[in-house]
C-alpha cells in the first residue's frame, strides 16, 4: 500500500463482479456466454451482442510491454521513482491486458524489480495486492 495514490472507484457500471473477485483474492474478467470472448475493462455486453458474466482467469500472463517511470511523478509515487510498470497480457485471450506493478512477492515495493530483468513475452503470474484498505488489485510476479 502506498498512501495517497489515486484509487479506482469501485462503484462503476458493470464492474461489481471484478471487485468482488479481487476481494476474495481472485482475478476474474467478463466472458461472453455466446462467443467466449474475454473483455477488460468492464462493459455492458459483448461486441457480438452476447451476455457477459465474470469468470475466474488463470492468472497466467506474459509481459506485453512496460515502461520505467522517472520523475516528475505524483508525490505519493515520488519515493519509488524510477519504477517499472507492466502491461500484462493474460493467457486467456490476446488483447486481455491489465496495467499493474511488477513484483517478486506480494508486498514488494513498486521499484523492487530491476527493469534490466524485463523482456517482452516473459511469463508473469497474477497476485492480488492491496492498493489501500478495501481496494485490491493484481500485481504481476516475474
Amino acid at each position: 500500500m502506498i498512501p495517497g495514490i489515486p484509487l479506482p472507484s469501485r462503484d462503476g457500471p458493470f464492474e461489481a463482479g471484478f471487485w468482488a473477485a479481487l476481494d476474495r483474492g481472485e482475478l476474474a474478467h467478463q466472458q461472453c456466454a455466446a462467443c467466449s470472448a474475454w473483455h477488460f475493462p468492464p462493459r455492458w455486453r459483448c461486441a457480438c451482442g452476447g451476455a457477459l458474466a465474470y469468470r475466474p482467469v488463470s492468472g497466467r500472463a506474459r509481459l506485453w510491454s512496460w515502461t520505467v517511470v522517472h520523475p516528475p511523478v505524483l508525490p505519493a509515487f515520488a519515493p519509488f521513482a524510477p519504477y517499472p510498470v507492466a502491461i500484462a497480457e493474460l493467457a486467456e485471450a490476446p488483447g486481455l491486458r491489465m496495467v499493474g506493478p511488477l513484483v517478486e512477492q506480494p508486498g514488494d515495493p513498486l521499484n523492487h524489480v530491476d527493469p534490466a530483468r524485463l523482456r517482452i513475452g516473459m511469463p508473469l503470474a497474477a497476485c492480488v495486492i492491496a492498493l489501500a484498505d478495501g481496494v485490491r488489485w493484481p500485481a504481476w510476479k516475474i
Partner: protein
Amino acid sequence: MTIAGKVAIAGIGQTPFGRGLEPSERELACIAIDAALQDAGVDAGQIDALCSYTMEATPDFEIVRNCGFGPLHYFAQVPHGGGAGPAAIGHAAMALATGQAKAAVVWRARKRSAAASRVWAQSAAVLEDHWKWSRPSGLLRPVDEVAVMARRYAHEYGDIAPALAEIAMALRAYACANPAAMMHGKPMDEAAYYAARMVADPLRLFDNCLETDGAVALVLLPVERARDARQKPVVIEAFAQGMIPGHQSMADFHRADALTSCGHVAAQQLWRMTGFTPADVDVAQIYDAFSPLILFSLEAYGFVPKGEAARFICDGGLRSDGALPTNTAGGGLSEAYLHGLNLVTEAVRQIRGTATTQIADARLALVTGCDATPNGALLLRSDG
C-alpha cells in the same frame, strides 16, 4: 455530399509562445483571435460561429463578449484533448458549408508552463473515469502511456531509438529557422538528445512536447467570400474523424491489435473523402505531443507501410529536402504545444507560401490529431 472546396481558412493569428507569459489564458485567446481577424480582414461583428476543444478553459460566451462577436448561430466543442484540433476546424467548416453560419473562429489558448498546471498532476483522489484501470499502478502521465506503446512497437518492428532522435533533431532544426518557436536559437545535436534525462523509458526529455503559454486562432469563411478577403484562401479539401472500437483515450492497451490506432480510422475516412492520395501531400503537420506519435501517424496515413516509419525518418524523410517535410515550424516538440492547433496555422502558412521554412510550391498539406486519442485530420490545399 462532402465539404470539399466549400470553405477556406482566411485568417490566422497567434500570441507569443513562451513560459510565464503575463496575460491570462482568456486574454491570450482574445489576442490571438484579434490577430486572426485582422489577418483575414474580417470584422469581429461578422463572426457567427465558434469552435474549440472541450479542454478549453474559456467559455465561448466569454470570447463572444470579449471580442465583440455578432449573434452566434453555431458553437461546438470537440473532445479528446490533442485529438480535437483538426475536428474543431472541421466542425466549423461543416457549419459554413451547410449554411448554418457565415464566418467562424476556432481557437486554443493554454497557460501550461507551470508544472502544477499539468492535467496529470491534478489527478483526483478517487478515479471515476477509465484512468482508474492504469493510474493506481503508477502509469501516471500521457508520456508513460505512449512509452509502453513505443516499446511494444519497437518489439514488433525493430529499434526506434535513432528515429526518435532524428524526429527531435529535425523538428528542432525547423524551430531554429522560426523566430516564434520556443526553441528558436537552441540547436540540438544527437549527443544532446541522448544526454537528456529519461522521462518514461524509452522516451527521453526531448521526445516530449513543450508545455507552453500561448494561443492560436483561425478564421474560416465560405470559399467565395474568402477570395475577397485579405489573404490567399487556404481551402479545406477534406476533414475526417476516427475512433476505433475498443479504444480508450491514451491508455489504449486493451485491444488485440492495439498498434492499429484511431489514426488508421481517421486516415481511411480522410482518403475516402478526396481524390488526393498520400503521394500528393507536399507537407505534413503531424500531432507530436510525443515523438513516437509521428512514427505511428506516418504509417496510419499511408506514407509508409507498417513497420517502416523509422527507416523513412532516419533517411531524412521529415526534413525540408526529404520525402515528406513534417512539422516545419518545429511542431509541439520545438515550436510550441497549443494542443496541435499551431500545426494548422503552420499548414496555412505553407499553402500561402509564407512559412519560415517554406517548402517550394507547397499546394497540399495534411494536418493530423493525436494518434493516441480519438482524433481527426484535415487536408488543406491551395485555391485553384
